[in-house]
Structures are given as structure tokens and as C-alpha cells.
């Protein structure tokens, strides 16, 4: 361009172009690197502009005196250089400003992304911790009373005591090893639930009977580990402490569309209990867990018809 438009010699044109553009490129890189470490706060873009003007000025000075020194014997080139300086400055300013602006935006965006990622990580950690805590909420009542039953059996029925220790150990191991996000099959969950129910039956003797209805098609359906135990614990607690009679806890599992539906039923006394308030820790922790895992609040429902309280959970299947 310089060669054609301004009829400059090849040597001059090439040197001028290489030096000018090379330096400009270096300047831009300098600005960008600088911005990586210094990020102007919002509304402080005037700092950016000042920096660009300063850098462009510096660049112009280097070009002016550098090229002027190299080609000082050529009059016409010197004139050309002198005259083109304002244009060169403007272009340099424009380009460095653009570079500054783009890199500022880029770095800002990067930072924002990083912040978001950090926030996500923190949320995930908090969620995991909460899920862990919800899962660990084993009622101490259950544990100590079971140990007391074992202590009683140890004297007269050591075989039974040993069996109960076995069941309690298997149950406790189950509560420890399962991961929150890990899904297990309904069949597995039911085995685990049976351990719990067997222990409770030893504790309460003839007062507690259970009825489990399940079909082969639900066996392989998936659900989060340890989800049902708090519901059953709740049912037993409300059922047994609300009456002096023997009670039956029933657990029904079935498939409905793409959901595993599990209903837990216990009797209650309409006279003295307020089932609406009966959403004790057991229910609210399961509700919270389902929300954390599926982001939905409609997966746990309760109903009270006559003197039967029913808790139903729906587990979406993949």
C-alpha cells in the first residue's frame, strides 16, 4: 500500500510496515497482558482510555524517532513520516483501545465464569453435606432401645440376642455405606427395610405386624438408598404411640407410568392426633432429600382417611 499509494521505495515501505505493525502488535499484547492482572472496576474505564492514549503516544514516539533515525538521509520519507504521524497515532489508539476493551470483556467474563463455577461447587458441597446429614439422622431412641432388648435377651435367650446383634449390625452397616446419589433397586431397599422391621418386631413383640405388597415388576425399579426407613420409622412411631392396641403397618409398592410408587400406612387416633401436624422430622427430612435429588416438592404426599394415615412417595425412573 505504502509502496503504491505513496510511491515509496520497497525498502522503506517494508521496513515501515514491519516496524509499525510489529510494534503495534507488541503494544497490544502488552496491554492485554497488563489487563489480565489489572482489571478496571466498573465505571473506571477512563483509566483504560488514559492507558491506551499513553501507550499509543509512546508507540508513536518510538515509530517517529526510530524510523526517523533509521531513514534520516531520505527527505521525502521524513516528510511522509511527519505528516502521517497523527493518522498513525489515531489508528494506534483505536487498535489498542479495541484490544483493551476486548480483553477487559474477556477477562471479566472469565472471572464471572470462575465465580459461577465456585458458587456451583460450594452449592454442591453444601447439598452433599446436607444429604449426608439427612441420611445419618438415625433416631437414637431406636438404637438404645434395640441395645436394651439385646441386653434383655442375652440372659435368657442368647441365640436370639446374637441374631438381633447380627440384624442390627447389618442395618447399621447399610446406613453407613450407601452413597446419596447412588440409586438402589427396590428389592435391595426392601431387604434393608425388612432388617429394620425385624428389629422393631422384637422390640414391640406382638403389638407390631407388617404387611408388604410388592410385585416382580417393581423389583428392579430404582430409588435413592435409605429413603424409606424414616417413613416407616415415622409410621411405627405414630402408629404404636397413638394406641395401646396391636397395629399393622403396610407397605405397598407399584409402578405407575414412569414412577415407582410406595405407600406406607399406619393407623392413628383421630381424636387425639393431628395428622397435619404429624409431619415430624421423618417426613420433612425425606421431603427435603427428594427436593435436593430431584428438584421437586410434589414427590411426597400424605393423606388421612378415617383412622389410616398414608404417606406416598413417587420416584421418577430414568
Amino acid at each position, binding site marked *: 500500500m505504502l509502496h503504491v499509494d505513496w510511491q515509496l521505495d520497497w525498502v522503506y515501505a517494508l521496513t515501515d510496515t514491519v516496524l509499525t505493525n510489529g510494534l503495534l502488535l507488541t503494544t497490544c499484547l502488552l496491554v492485554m497482558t497488563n489487563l489480565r492482572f489489572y482489571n478496571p472496576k466498573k465505571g473506571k474505564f477512563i483509566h483504560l482510555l488514559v492507558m491506551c492514549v499513553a501507550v499509543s503516544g509512546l508507540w508513536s514516539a518510538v515509530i517517529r524517532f526510530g524510523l526517523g533515525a533509521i531513514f534520516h538521509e531520505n527527505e521525502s520519507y521524513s516528510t511522509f513520516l511527519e505528516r502521517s504521524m497523527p493518522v498513525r497515532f489515531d489508528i494506534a489508539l483505536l487498535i489498542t483501545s479495541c484490544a483493551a476493551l476486548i480483553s477487559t470483556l474477556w477477562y471479566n467474563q472469565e472471572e464471572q465464569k470462575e465465580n459461577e463455577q465456585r458458587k456451583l461447587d460450594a452449592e454442591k458441597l453444601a447439598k452433599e453435606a446436607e444429604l449426608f446429614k439427612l441420611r445419618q439422622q438415625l433416631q*437414637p*431412641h431406636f438404637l*438404645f*432401645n434395640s*441395645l*436394651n*432388648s*439385646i*441386653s*434383655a*435377651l442375652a*440372659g*435368657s435367650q442368647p441365640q436370639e440376642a446374637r441374631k438381633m446383634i447380627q440384624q442390627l449390625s447389618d442395618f447399621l452397616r447399610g446406613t453407613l455405606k450407601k452413597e446419596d446419589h447412588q440409586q438402589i433397586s427396590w428389592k435391595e431397599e426392601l431387604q434393608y427395610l425388612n432388617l429394620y422391621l425385624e428389629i422393631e418386631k*422384637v*422390640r*414391640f*413383640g406382638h*403389638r407390631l405386624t407388617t404387611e408388604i405388597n410388592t410385585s416382580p415388576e417393581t423389583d428392579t425399579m430404582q430409588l435413592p438408598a435409605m429413603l424409606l426407613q424414616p417413613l416407616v420409622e415415622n409410621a411405627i412411631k405414630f402408629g*404404636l*404411640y*397413638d*394406641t*395401646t392396641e396391636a397395629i399393622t403397618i403396610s407397605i405397598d409398592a407399584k409402578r405407575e407410568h414412569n414412577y415407582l410408587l410406595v405407600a406406607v400406612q399406619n393407623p392413628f387416633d383421630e*381424636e*387425639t*392426633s*393431628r395428622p397435619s401436624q404429624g409431619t415430624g422430622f421423618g417426613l420433612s427430612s425425606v421431603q427435603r432429600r427428594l427436593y435436593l435429588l430431584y428438584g421437586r416438592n410434589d414427590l411426597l404426599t400424605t393423606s388421612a382417611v378415617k383412622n389410616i394415615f398414608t404417606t406416598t412417595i413417587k420416584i421418577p425412573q430414568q
Partner: protein
Amino acid sequence: MIKALIIDDEPLARMIVKEYLQKHKEIELLQECNDGFEGLKAIQQYQPDLIFLDIQMPKINGFEMLELIDQPPAVIFTTAFDEYAIKAFESHAVDYLLKPFSQERFDKAVQKMLEQRNISPVSKISEPLLEAASQTAPQNQRIVVKNGSKIKIIPVEDVYYLEAADDYVKIFTKEGSFLKNKTMSHFEQSLDKNLFVRTHRSCIVNIQQITRIDPYEKDGHIAILKSGGRVSVSKTGYVKLKEVLGI
């Protein structure tokens, strides 16, 4: 001979107390009871000197059962885990056994009871314990009363208002009124303060039952309830009532 009862809803828990008792020939076990109702009946029938009492039991818990007895015998509590109850025990000198407990610990509790028996009547000792226990859940959600020979459990939401009546408190509900051998300040302490307000020296009202409040005589007011009941409101009571109602 010391007459004793075991009141616990878990058969194995009763079994171990019975087993530990075999060593103590001076104690005669009269009956094992499944729950508080059976316990009450047996206490009336046998007038025992000592009961081993679980707290968490069907229908009425151990504390509520004790409240219904005019002269409670010596009590050794046997319980698994109950933060509130343990607090109640620790602040008062009545022994308690945390399940599972050993024969040695059991013997110590019996020994302690025998010593206390020689010093003072036990019914006096259990009073502050009951008072402390009654401040804890679920006692603040329901009131257990004796209605003739029957036991009535009143959820607090069903209570219209309470009125002082000599040494008793009269509890008004939709099913009529019941007497309970407690003080007004006991109920003022234990009932939910967002639901019940002591409007007068002799009145505590369930604020959800109020339909309107009218001026009455010179400084006072009177609250008219949905049921048609009328509850006196003193000058200070009116201030408290306005605060809770947010007016």
C-alpha cells in the same frame, strides 16, 4: 416388703428389670404394665411403693401418667434417650436409668430409693421433676385429664380457655370443661405463648377462639369467644393480648 410395678411398653425392657429385681428380695413385683392406662389402674389397685417407669409409651407418656396420680409413689425412670427428659432429671434428685443399664447401676438406683424413703416422702421429691418435665414436648401440645375414671387427652388447639378454680384449673373445650390439679402459672408457662395469653389473673385464653373484644366496666375489657364464652381481660392482659394479636 416394698411393693413395686414395672410400666414399660416393650416386653424385653420389662423382662430385664424383672431379671435385675430377682436379686432384691425385699422388693415384691406385683404387676407388669404395658402402658400408662394399665399403670394407672394398677397403681390405684395396689398403691405400690415404687414404680419403674418408661417415658415414651403409647397414648400417654410416663410424665403424663404421673400427673394423674394424687400421691405418686417413688419413681425410677427407665428410658433410652430423651434430651428434655434427661435435663428434667438432672436438675432434680430423682434417679433414672438410661437403657441399656447394668445390674450394678440398677442396684445403685434401688439403694438410692431405699435411702430417700427413710428421709422424706417421695411424692414431695417428684413434684419439681414433674414441673420441669411438663415444660417439655409433647406436654405443651396436649393436656391429659382425668374425667371420672376415664382419661381424656385434649389437644391444645381444642382448648377454648382456662379458668382458675380454687386449687384447680378448669379447662373449657367443645366437649365441656375438665378440672386439672395444676396452677394457672403452670399453664401460662407451658402453653404456647403465641396461642395462649393470660388475659387476667384467673384466665388464659386461646386467641384463635376470640371473635371480638369489648370494653367492660371502667378499665377492663371482655373477650367474646366463638363458642359464646366470655373471658375477663384486665388492663395488663389487654396490652398482652394486643401484642400477640398484632393490633
